[in-house]
């Protein structure tokens, strides 16, 4: 495909358990340390051993935002003989690409000699790494970005039940808890996860949980509890293919309706949908401030495509951003109050009085419009101002659409990374003047399309929908437009 001609894609495959992902990540590190940009795409069945795993390392001198569909080099590590096939493969591939093995010596530990044997016995075939193109880049996936965003945001308590694709978040948080002085606690189930986090938040901690769709289903009553008791809470939902156990190790944007409607009754649910690891870092940080500011649940909606895929960025920093704190009541301070799941008065005492009910429903509900007024940014538009076609999409499809845009000069792109509150006016204005609008999302029913209609009254008739668990490849988007 023409669009990705400046990207060189190396696909490394092998039997699950052979260390395919590790091999790819080391090759990617060799590339980013040499100043190249990379994007790692992984496929793995829901097994620990057996089946085929693969990782596609996309390398370019320019930012790579999504994986190419067809690799330029296909490398099967199962064909290698030796104890650490994957490490020998790293040496071989780096030699083929004109890379530098010494550059990743720290990642090879006591297996350096094996990598060196692979390196020495191979020949250079595609020397894309031989010309250094700039400063070293960072390499980060969505799970790392979410965990680091939470830590930066002053996380004090996290309770997360293991589930693909977000387990990486809990692994990261568990590892660093003593260093930063927060608690990670593994709960018995997702119901406990959300309730423990709510308890810790009630006690004054900045608290979060994370899960995937199935776990989020169990958490929904807790989402309402946080809303009703006005307890700040951050929930990260890393989507995978549903329904039920679905496609556990594949991706989908199928939980939008679920999170927008999570919990019975009306209460403010703030929903963010970052489009890449950098946005995940920034919006997870933001989620903690919003949760404290509005004392309501904030859901960060990501997916397997983001959680598992490493992407390079020039840099990442905490910058000007600040941890915001807001006064709220806490137990142990001497102040009497009840945090109550029943409707309640100002002290929190249970009440069924009409005036109290109306007052407190309105008080909670208006947080959403306050948030829209104070915090909701204008959504980002990529590409030319005047376009023959406009793509609308959200969350993780950002990368594939932007890659496609490189080959579609007459197409622009509205990327939504705030879902609730919804940027109604901006979207109405932009779509209202667009010539042809195509909704791109990774689910079968066009959930964002319906959400746009509900908020703006605009119906999008053209859709590019995909629900086979595989991400959008830029080639497919170009072809369908």
């Amino acid at each position, binding site marked *: 495909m023409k669009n990705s001609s400046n990207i060189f894609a190396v696909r490394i495959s092998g039997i699950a358990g052979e260390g395919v992902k590790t091999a790819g990540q080391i090759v990617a590190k060799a590339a*980013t340390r040499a100043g190249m940009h990379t994007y790692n795409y992984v496929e793995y069945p829901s097994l620990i051993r057996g089946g085929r795993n693969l990782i596609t390392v996309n390398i370019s001198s320019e930012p790579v935002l999504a994986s190419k569909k067809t690799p330029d080099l296909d490398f099967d590590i199962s064909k290698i003989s030796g104890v650490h096939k994957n490490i020998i493969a790293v040496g071989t591939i780096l030699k083929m690409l004109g890379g530098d093995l010494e550059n990743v010596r720290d990642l090879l530990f006591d297996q350096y000699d094996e990598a060196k044997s692979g390196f020495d016995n191979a020949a250079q075939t595609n020397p894309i790494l031989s010309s250094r193109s700039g400063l070293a880049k*960072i*390499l*980060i996936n969505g799970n790392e970005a979410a965990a*680091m965003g939470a*830590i*930066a*945001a*002053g996380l*004090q*308590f996290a*309770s997360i039940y293991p589930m693909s694709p977000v387990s990486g978040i809990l692994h990261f948080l568990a590892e660093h*808890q003593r260093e*930063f*002085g*927060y*608690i990670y*606690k593994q*709960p*018995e*189930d997702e*119901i*406990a996860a959300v*309730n*423990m*986090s*709510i*308890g*810790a938040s*009630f*006690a*004054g*901690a900045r*608290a979060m949980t994370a899960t995937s769709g199935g776990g989020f289903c169990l958490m929904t*009553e*807790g989402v309402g*509890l946080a809303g009703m*008791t006005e307890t700040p809470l951050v929930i990260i939902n890393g989507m995978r293919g549903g329904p039920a156990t679905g496609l556990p190790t594949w991706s989908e944007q199928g939980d939008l309706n679920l999170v927008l409607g999570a919990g019975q009754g009306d209460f403010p649910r703030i929903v963010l949908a970052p489009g890449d690891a950098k946005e995940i870092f920034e919006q997870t940080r933001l989620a903690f401030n919003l949760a*404290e500011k509005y004392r309501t649940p904030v859901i960060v909606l990501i997916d397997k495509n983001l959680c598992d895929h490493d992407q390079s960025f020039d840099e*990442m*920093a*905490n910058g000007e951003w*600040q*941890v*915001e*704190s807001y006064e709220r009541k*806490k*137990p*142990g*301070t*001497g*102040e*009497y109050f*009840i*945090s*109550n*799941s029943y409707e309640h008065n100002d*002290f*929190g005492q*249970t009440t069924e009085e009409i005036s109290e009910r109306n007052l407190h429903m309105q008080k909670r509900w208006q947080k959403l419009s306050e948030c829209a007024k104070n915090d909701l940014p204008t959504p980002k538009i990529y590409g030319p101002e005047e376009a023959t076609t406009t793509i609308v999409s959200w969350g993780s499809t950002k990368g594939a659409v932007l890659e496609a845009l490189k080959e579609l000069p007459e197409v622009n792109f509205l990327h939504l990374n705030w879902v609730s509150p919804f940027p109604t006016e901006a979207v109405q204005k932009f779509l209202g003047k667009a010539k042809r609008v195509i909704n791109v999302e990774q689910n079968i029913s066009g959930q964002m399309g319906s959400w746009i209609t509900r908020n703006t009254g605009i119906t999008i008739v053209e859709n590019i929908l995909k629900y086979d668990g595989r991400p959008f490849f830029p080639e497919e988007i170009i072809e369908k437009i």
Partner: protein
Amino acid sequence: MTLEDLNPGCSPTWCPGCGNFGVWAAFKNAVVASGWDNTNSVLVAGIGCHGHMLNFVKMTSFNGLHGRAIPVATGIKLANPKLNTFVFTGDGDCLGEGGNHFIHACRRNHDLTVILHDNALYSLTTGQTSPMSAKGAKTKSTPGGNPDEPFSPLTLAISAGATFVARAFSSDIPKLADLIAKANAHKGFALIDVLQPCATFNKDYTYQFFQENTYPLEMDHDVTNKILALEKSQEWGLKKIPLGIFYQVQKETFVYPEISLGAKERDISGLLKNLY
């Protein structure tokens, strides 16, 4: 703190003769005697007749969802270990809807005081069978008699790892107050199963039934003997319902990272460096 300080200005809405009055009185007496107040204590309840108690005691509290009091209390205690953390829960709340949380809180031996309002019935929903209802009990959901056996929350708690396991009768207010104080003084997971009549819906477990059929555990009962405690916890029947502390041992408790509450900037430059 005096008894008058604990009065929030609204009176209990329980039925006349409800066993909850005894638990309420015993708890308030324990609060006054032990010096608990809103600077050092917090109450958590689930949903059921028991949960209404939070409205009748002027102490800082969290009234959560049905079955979920224990995980909320766990989060509170982890975030602020200085707080005496009391959980009020019912037999349906704790052993039905919240059974999984109960088992794992016992296993982890979190330092919580759990007061189980056990009336062997779902009473707030007007009288259906609960995990504690006797086999054959006629309730609104078992008009032909309960086909299922109840189980012993004491046996379950001891097996699962709880380190303070006791039973009381709601009408013996001084003894219950004393047990609540002892349970809170215990470092680790403390359960008090409080047998209480539901005057409105439970015609089997009446005041008279409990008065006639309960007895205090022997003075020389060895509370550190797990096998004996398990045996005693399996006793149930006419003249055969023991009350008192069945089991109490000290176990080393895991020390979690201490967190200082409040918003703070974090320097994550070290983490960012690792990404190169």
